[in-house]
C-alpha cells in the first residue's frame, strides 16, 4: 500500500498528475472510488483484489476531465476499458497516467497506451466462472423459459439507468433512449420498454463490452444485466474471433467486413 502511495505522491510532486482516481475504504469497509486532488489525501489510497469498480467511467465526466492530467488506478477490467476506449477515440482531450498493481503486488506505471495494450494482452482475463455457470444454466433452459426468465427480470427494472451510468462504454452524450425524434424506446418504466432498453443496450455493447460486470453488480433491483453483454461477447468471439478491450487498433465485429466472412450475401 505504501509503495502505491509513494508512487502516486511522486506523480503529484513531479506534476505528472493533478487528480488521482483510486480507491479508499468506505465506512462499510468496502473499497470505494476516491478522488485525490491534494497530496495530503494520498494516505487514504488503497488497492486490494476487492477493488472491483471500473474507474475508467470517470474519465468521461467533465468535472474529472477539467483536471487535465489524471492518474487512474486500474484493475484489469479498467485496463481493458481504457484500451477499448482508446480504440474508440475517446481520450483526445485528456492526459492520463495509468497505474495498476499486479499479482505480485508490484505497482506498475504505464508510460503509454501501447504498454497497457501489451499488459492486457499478456493478462487477458477469462470470462468469470460464475457468469459462465449462469449462462450455461440459461442456455440449458428452453426458449420459452429463457424468455420468461428475462421478462421477469426486466419487469423489475425501473429505468434508473444506473447500468448505463456505471458503464465505461456508455459514454454517448445523448443515449438512444433520449432520442425522441422519433421516440425509439418508451422511457416510462413499463415492461415492454424495459425489454427494448436492455436488448438495445446489449446490442450496442456487443463486441464493445469489456466484461467488467459493473452493470450487473450495481443494479438496484438486482437484475444480472451484465450477462447479456457477456453473452454477446462470448458469441462474437466464437463467431468472429474478436475480443473487446484487447487491441488499440480495435477489431470490432459489427463495423467490419472481411472477405472470408461466413455470410456471403453481402459480397
Amino acid at each position, binding site marked *: 500500500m505504501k509503495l502505491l502511495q509513494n508512487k502516486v505522491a511522486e506523480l503529484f510532486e513531479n506534476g505528472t498528475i493533478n487528480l488521482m482516481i483510486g480507491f479508499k475504504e468506505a465506512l462499510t469497509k468496502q473499497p470505494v472510488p476516491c478522488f485525490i486532488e491534494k497530496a495530503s489525501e494520498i494516505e487514504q489510497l488503497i488497492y486490494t483484489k476487492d477493488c472491483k469498480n471500473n474507474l475508467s467511467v470517470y474519465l468521461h465526466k467533465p468535472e474529472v476531465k477539467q483536471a487535465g492530467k489524471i492518474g487512474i488506478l486500474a484493475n484489469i477490467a479498467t485496463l481493458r476499458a481504457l484500451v477499448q476506449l482508446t480504440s474508440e477515440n475517446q481520450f483526445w482531450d485528456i492526459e492520463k497516467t495509468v497505474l495498476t498493481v499486479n499479482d505480485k503486488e508490484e505497482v506498475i506505471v504505464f508510460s503509454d497506451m501501447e504498454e497497457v495494450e501489451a499488459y492486457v494482452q499478456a493478462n487477458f482475463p477469462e470470462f468469470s466462472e460464475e457468469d459462465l455457470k449462469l449462462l450455461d444454466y440459461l442456455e440449458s433452459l428452453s426458449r420459452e423459459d429463457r424468455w420468461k426468465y428475462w421478462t421477469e427480470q426486466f419487469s423489475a427494472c425501473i429505468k434508473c439507468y444506473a447500468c448505463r451510468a456505471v458503464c465505461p462504454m456508455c*459514454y454517448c452524450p445523448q443515449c438512444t433512449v433520449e432520442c425522441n425524434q422519433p421516440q425509439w424506446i418508451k422511457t416510462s418504466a413499463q415492461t415492454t420498454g424495459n425489454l427494448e432498453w436492455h436488448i438495445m443496450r446489449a446490442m450496442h455493447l456487443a463486441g464493445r463490452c469489456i466484461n467488467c460486470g459493473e452493470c450487473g453488480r450495481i443494479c438496484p433491483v438486482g437484475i444480472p444485466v451484465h450477462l447479456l453483454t457477456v453473452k454477446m461477447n462470448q458469441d462474437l468471439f466464437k463467431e468472429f474471433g474478436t475480443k473487446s478491450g484487447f487491441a488499440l487498433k480495435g477489431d470490432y465485429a459489427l463495423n467490419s467486413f472481411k472477405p472470408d466472412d461466413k455470410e456471403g450475401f453481402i459480397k
Partner: protein
Amino acid sequence: MARIGVFICHCGENISATVDVAKVAEEAAKMPGVAYAMDYKYMCSDPGQTKIIEAIKEHKLTGIVVGACSPRMHEATFRKAAEKGGINPFLCEIANLREQVSWVHPRTEATTRKAIDIVRTIVNKVSKDTPLFPIKVPVTKTALVIGGGIAGIQAALDIANAGHQVIMVEKSPSIGGHMSQLSETFPTLDCSQCILTPRMVEVAQHPNITLHTFAEVESVSGFVGNFDVKVRLKARSVDMSKCTGCGTCWQKCPSKKIPDEFNAGLSYRTAIYSPFPQAVPNKPVIDRANCNYFQKGKCGICKKVCPAGAIDYEMEDEIIDIKVGAIVTATGFDIKHTDFFPEYGYGEFKDVIDGLQFERLASASGPTSGEIRRPSDGKIPEKIVFLACSGSRDKAKGIEYCSKICCMYTAKHAMLYKHKHHEGNAYVFYMDIRSAGKNYDEFVRRAIEEDDVHYIRGRVSRIYEKDGKLIVKGVDTLMNAEPVEIEADMVVLATAVVANPDAESVAQKMHISYDKHHFFAEAHPKLRPVETNTAGIMLAGACQTAKDIPDTVSQASAAASKIMGLFSSDEMTREPVVAVVNRCMPPLFTTCTGCLLCLEVCPYHAIEREEIKDRRTGEILKVAAKVNAGLCQGCGTCVAFCRNKSIDLQGFSNQQMLSEVVALLNKPF
C-alpha cells in the same frame, strides 16, 4: 396536422385493372393529414400534372403523395410538378402502386387493401418530410477511359475532340485490343488494321489524351464528378523516354519460345517484346515472368545491346493518383478457348482452333502472312468445318446467351477461306443463323449462295482424329436428322464470347454491378444502356455483353456524349438524399460521440473526422464524425450503425421510416 394531397394514377389500366383506384382515393381522403385526394387516368400526363399543381394551390397542400408507378419512373416528373405548385419538391413522395401492387397481384379486395396501406404509409412519411435542397458539387472535367480497344479509343477520341482531357489506361503494352487482331471485318471485308491503326495513332498524338499502357486501375474512390483513381503503371523495364523502338533488343533476346498472345498462341515471341508492328506505343516491355534475367539472374543481353540505354531492370511499379470526373469502362471481352470443349478434342488436336486463331491465320500480319495453313503441319486445308455456337446458347455449358458475333464471323471466315482457296470445301454447322444488322443477312447469303459454303443445320457431337484427318460427326436436322460425317483438315470453333477473367474484380474496384456471367450491368436495359448504376461510370463495348464493332463504336460514342453532357457545366446538382451528422447548440454541438467506428462501415469512404473548434481560441471542443455530402451515396449503412442515432439520412430519416412503420401497424381496421 399537415395538409397532404393524394393523387392516385390509373396508369391507363396498368393499375386500375387490378386495384380499385377510386376506393384507394376515397380511403386516402379519410387518412389523418390528408386534405385532398383524387384519382386520374394518367397522372404523369400534362393534364395530370396540372391537376396536381392546381390542387396544391387550391387546397394549400403542404405535401403530396402520388400513387403511381415506381419512383424510378416518374418521381422526377411529380417532384417538378410539386415545385411548380409552390412546395419543396422533396415534399412529394411516390406510393408505388404498380410494381409493388397491381403488377404482382390479381384483382382482389386484398390487392386494393394493400394499395391503401402503401398510400397510408407514404402519407404518414410525407407528414414528417422536411424541405430539402439540392447539393452542388464541382466537376473535374477529365475522363478516365479504361481499356484501349476500339471502344476505349472511340470514346477517348470523342471526348478529347470535344475539348476535354482524357486519361486512357490499357492493361497490355499496346492499345488496339481485339480489333487489332482481326483480319477483315464483316460485312464489308475491309482490313481491320487498316481502319483501326489510324485511330490508334490519333489517340497517341492527341493533345488532350494521356495514354498509360501496361497499366491497370488499382482503385476507384470518390463519386461522380470527383473520382480519385489510383493507377498502377506496371514496370516496363524499358525507359519510354529513351527507347526509340528500334527493335534490337527483341531481335537479340534469347528467350524466344513464349506463346504470342497477339497471334492467339499460334506463334512465339521473345521475353522483351512489342506485341505487333503497329503497336502504340511501339516500345517494348520485358515480360518478367519469362525473362532469364528476372527468373535466373543471368542474361542481361537486351541491356547490353540497347543503343539508347533504355533498359532498366530496377524499374518498379509506380502508382499514380489521378482525379477524374467520369469513367468509361471499356475493358472488353475474352472468348472460350478450345480446351473448353473436351468433346471436340480437349484442345489436344492442333487443328481444332478457335475463331480468333483463324483471324490470325487469315491476317496478313499473322504468323502465316495471311496464308490459311493448318497449325499442325502448315498444310493448306482442303476441307474446313466451322462450328457456330460453340458453347453459346448451351445451358449445359453454363452459357445460355447468344454470343451475337459468331454467325457473322463464321460466314466471314468461310468466305475468306473460299476466296483464297476456291477449290476448298467449307462447311458450317449452325443452330440458327442470326444475321440481323445492316447488310448482315446479305453477307451470309453471299457466303452460301455465291461462295458455295455448305451450311448444315445441326450440332456436332464429336470430333476425333483418324489418319491425319479430323472426323466431324454431326447431324443435319433439316435432312430428317440424318447423321453427317465430314473428314476435315481443320475445324474452327466459333467459341462463346465471355467476360474477361478479371471482370469481377474490376467491377468491385469500380463499385459497379455485374451479371452472373460477370458482364457489367447497365443502369437500365432499355433506357439507360450506357450508364452503370454508379453515377459517372459508363460502359462501352463488349465488357457489357457480346457486341460487334459497329455496336461497340456506337456505344462508345454514346458513353462519350453522356460524359460530355456531364462536363458541360462546372458543377452539378446532386439529390440531397445524403447522410448528415446532427449538429446542435453548444455545449453539446452534436450528439455524435466521435467514436468514429462509422468510418469503417461506409462503403464510399464518405465519413471523416471533424474537429469542432472554438471560433476564437481555436481550441478543439469536440471530435465528431462528418459526412462528405459529395461522396455520400445515401445508402444508410452509417445510420443503421450509429449507436445513438447521431446520423440521419435526409429524405429517409429515422423519423420518416418509423412513421411509415407506425402507419402500417396502427391502421384503423
